[in-house]
C-alpha cells in the first residue's frame, strides 16, 4: 500500500513534470492558435536552449549562433530579392538587418563569456537566441505556403525537428551534458525533498500563464493575434498583418519552449534527444484541453504529469501505454460535452 510519503513524492514530482509539459503545451497552443501549425519541433527548441546554455556556461560559442546567422542571412536575402525593384536602399536595409542580427548572435555570447556572466544572464541569452529562431522558421518555412493543409505543416515542422536534432548531435555530440541550477538548494516538506529549481519551474509556469492570459485578453496586439486564429481572412481585412502575427506567435512560442528548456536543464541533464518526448507530452496535454485555451493546456499538462507518475508507480513497463490509453476516454468525454453545447446549423 502506498503510504503518505509515497503519495506526497508522487504528487510533487508529478506536478513538476506536469509543469514542464504545461510550459511546452503553452507554446504549442499559442503557435497553433495563431498559425494553425502543430509544431512537432517544439521540444527541440527547448533542447536547443538548454544546449546553448551548456555552451555559454563553459564560455564557448554556441552552435546556435551559426544557426541564427544562417537564418538571418537567408531571410535578408529573400527580403532583398523581393525588394529588388525598389531601389538600392530597399535592398540594403534587409541585408544590413540580417548582418546585424548575425553579428549580434556571435557578439553577445562572446561578450557574456568574456565577462563571466552569472547564470541568469546566460539563461536569458539562451532564451533570446532560441526565441529569435522562431520568427525565422516561420518566415522561411511557413510563410511561403500560407494555404497548405495542417498535415503539410506537420511534415514541415517534422523536417525542422530532423534538422535541429541532427545539428545538435553534430555540435554537442551524443553524450549528456549538465548545467548548474539557477537556484540551488532544496526545501523539505516532511520527508519529501523538493529542489528550489523545481519550485522555480512551478512558479514561472504560473507567472507565464497569467501573463499570457492578460496579454491575450487585454492588450490590442494580443487580441490581434487571437483574431488571426479565429479567422485569417477576416483579420487580414481588418488590417491585421497576418504574416507578422505568425512570426510573433512563433517567436513567443519558441521563447516559451526555450524558458522550459533552460529551467529543466539542471534537473534532468541535457542531451540531443531530450526535446521530442517532452514536446510530445506537452502537445498531448495541450490537446486534452482542446488546443483552445491556455488554462486548459496547463491543466492538460499537469494531468499528464500526474498520470505518468501514478502509472510509473503501478507498472513501470506499461506506463506509457496506460497514460496514452487513458487519454482516449477523456477525449470522448470532451467531444460529448462539446456536442451537447451546440447543434451544427446550416444558416
Amino acid at each position, binding site marked *: 500500500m502506498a503510504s503518505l510519503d*509515497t503519495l506526497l513524492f508522487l504528487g510533487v514530482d508529478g506536478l513538476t513534470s506536469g509543469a514542464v509539459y504545461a510550459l511546452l503545451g503553452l507554446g504549442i497552443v499559442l503557435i497553433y492558435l495563431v498559425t494553425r501549425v502543430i509544431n512537432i519541433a517544439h521540444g527541440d527548441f527547448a533542447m536547443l536552449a538548454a544546449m546553448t546554455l551548456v555552451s555559454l556556461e563553459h564560455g564557448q560559442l554556441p552552435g546556435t549562433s551559426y544557426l541564427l546567422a544562417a537564418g538571418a542571412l537567408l531571410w535578408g536575402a529573400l527580403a532583398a530579392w523581393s525588394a529588388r525593384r525598389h531601389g538600392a536602399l530597399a535592398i540594403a536595409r534587409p541585408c544590413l538587418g540580417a548582418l546585424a542580427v548575425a553579428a549580434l548572435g556571435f557578439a553577445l555570447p562572446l561578450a557574456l563569456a568574456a565577462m563571466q556572466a552569472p547564470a541568469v544572464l546566460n539563461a536569458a541569452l539562451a532564451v533570446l537566441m532560441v526565441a529569435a529562431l522562431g520568427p525565422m522558421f516561420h518566415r522561411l518555412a511557413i510563410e511561403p505556403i500560407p494555404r497548405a493543409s495542417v498535415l503539410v505543416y506537420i511534415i514541415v515542422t517534422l523536417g525542422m525537428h530532423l534538422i535541429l536534432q541532427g545539428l545538435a548531435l553534430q555540435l554537442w555530440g551524443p553524450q549528456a551534458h549538465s548545467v548548474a541550477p539557477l537556484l540551488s538548494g532544496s526545501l523539505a516538506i516532511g520527508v519529501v525533498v523538493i529542489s528550489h529549481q523545481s519550485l522555480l519551474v512551478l512558479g514561472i509556469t504560473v507567472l507565464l500563464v497569467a501573463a499570457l492570459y492578460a496579454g491575450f485578453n487585454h492588450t490590442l496586439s494580443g487580441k490581434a493575434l487571437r483574431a488571426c486564429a479565429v479567422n485569417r481572412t477576416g483579420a487580414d481585412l481588418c488590417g491585421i498583418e497576418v504574416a507578422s502575427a505568425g512570426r510573433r506567435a512563433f517567436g513567443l512560442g519558441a521563447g516559451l519552449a526555450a524558458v522550459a528548456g533552460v529551467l529543466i536543464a539542471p534537473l534532468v541533464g541535457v542531451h540531443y534527444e531530450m526535446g521530442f*518526448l517532452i514536446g510530445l507530452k506537452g502537445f498531448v496535454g495541450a490537446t486534452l484541453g482542446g488546443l483552445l485555451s491556455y488554462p486548459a493546456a496547463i491543466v492538460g499538462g499537469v494531468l499528464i504529469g500526474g498520470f505518468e507518475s501514478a502509472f510509473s508507480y503501478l507498472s513501470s513497463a506499461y506506463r506509457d501505454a496506460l497514460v496514452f490509453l487513458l487519454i482516449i476516454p477523456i477525449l470522448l468525454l470532451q467531444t460529448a460535452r462539446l456536442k451537447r453545447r451546440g447543434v451544427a446549423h446550416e444558416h
Partner: protein
Amino acid sequence: MNPFKRLLTAALMCTAVQATAWAQTPNKPTLVIGVVASASGPAAALGLPEKKAVELVEEMARARTDLPFTPKFVYLDDGSDPTRAVNAVRKLAGEDGAAVVICCTTTPASMAVLDTVKAAGVLNISMASAATVVEPVAERFWTFKTPMTDRMQIAFTLERLKKSGAKRVAYFGLEDAYGEAGWNEFRKLAPEYGLQIVGNERFSRADTNFTPQALRIRQAGADAVYLHAIPPSSVLANQALLRVGVDRPVFHSAGAANAGFLAMAKGSLDGAYVVSGALQVHEQLAPTHPLKAPLQRFVEAYARKFPGEAADLFAGQGWDAGHLALSALSGAVKAVPAGAPLPTLRAAARDQMERIRGHAGANGIFNFSKDDHLGLDDVGLVMLRVEGGRFKLLED
C-alpha cells in the same frame, strides 16, 4: 530528380575508384572493410565513438607498411534502425565488395543482419553487447563480436554483490534492447548467486521523472540495487534512489563507466559501484597488468586524433573491431593465392578470425575458436567505485 540515377552514378563512381586502385597496386590488393555504425538515432551515443575509433584505426593502418593489402573503409549509418542496417550490409557486401563487415552497434540490428551476412558469406564483427549475437555458435558461423557480454559483466557484478552480503536485489533498468538484455541475464544469473529478485523497474532514455520507480524499489526493501542504463538516465535514476531514501549500495552496468556519467553526477553519487572495462581506469592498473600498455596506446592515439575527447568503452569496441578485421584480412591475404575471387577471400578471413589468439584489445585479450566467437574472459573487467567524483579501481 531521379534517385536511381544518382545512386547508379555514385555506385559506378565507387566501382571505378576501386578498379583504379586495383590497377595501380597489383601486388597489394585493396580490400574493402565495410562499417555500419549508428551515427544517428537513439544509439548514437554508442555508435559515434565506435565510428571514430574505426576512423582512428584506418588512419593508423594507412601509416603501416606491414599490411599485405591496402585497406579501404566504407562507413554507413543505420540510424539505429535494423531495416536500414540490413540494407546497408547488403550494399557493403554487394555493391562495395567488402571483404569484412563490421556491423552493428545495437543488438536488434546485429540480429537482423545475421541472414544477410550468411547469404553473402562474409565475416561480420559485431559491436553489440548481447550474447545472443554469437550464440549458439553453430548458427553464428559468420558472426563474431568484440564487447564483453552482458552475462559476463552481470556475473562479475553479482559476484561482488553477493560478497557484500546482499540477499535481496532489485533490477532498475532501461526498457530498450540494452536494458532488456541486461534483465534477461540478470533474471537467470541472480538465483545462481543465491540472490532474490525483489523488484524490476524500467524507464526510457528520455524519461525525466524516476521517483515512482525509486519509490517502488524502496518499498520492496532491497539490500542492493542493480542499475542497467547509460547516462543521463543512469545518473538521474541513481539520484532518484537517493532522494527517496534508498541508502543501499547501487551497482551500475558498464554503460555508466564513462566520463559523461561523472560529469553529470557532479559528486552526488559517491559510493556507487560501476563495473567497467579496464580501459576506463587504465592508469590505475598495476604495471604488470597485461592490458595496461595496449590500453595506454589506444587512449593516447585517440586523444591525439580527437583532442578534447576521451576514449570510452564504446570507442573501444570500434578499436577492437577495426584491428581484428585487419588481422583477419592480413592472415587471409597470406593464406590464399593472389587474385583469388572474393568469396574465397571472405571465407579465408572468417577462418583466420577464428584462429586469432592472444590479441590484446581494449576489451581484453581475445582468444577466438570454433566454439567461441567472443573470445574474452574477464581479465578486462574491473569493479570501480565512485569516490570524490572520480572512478577508483577496486582491488579484490
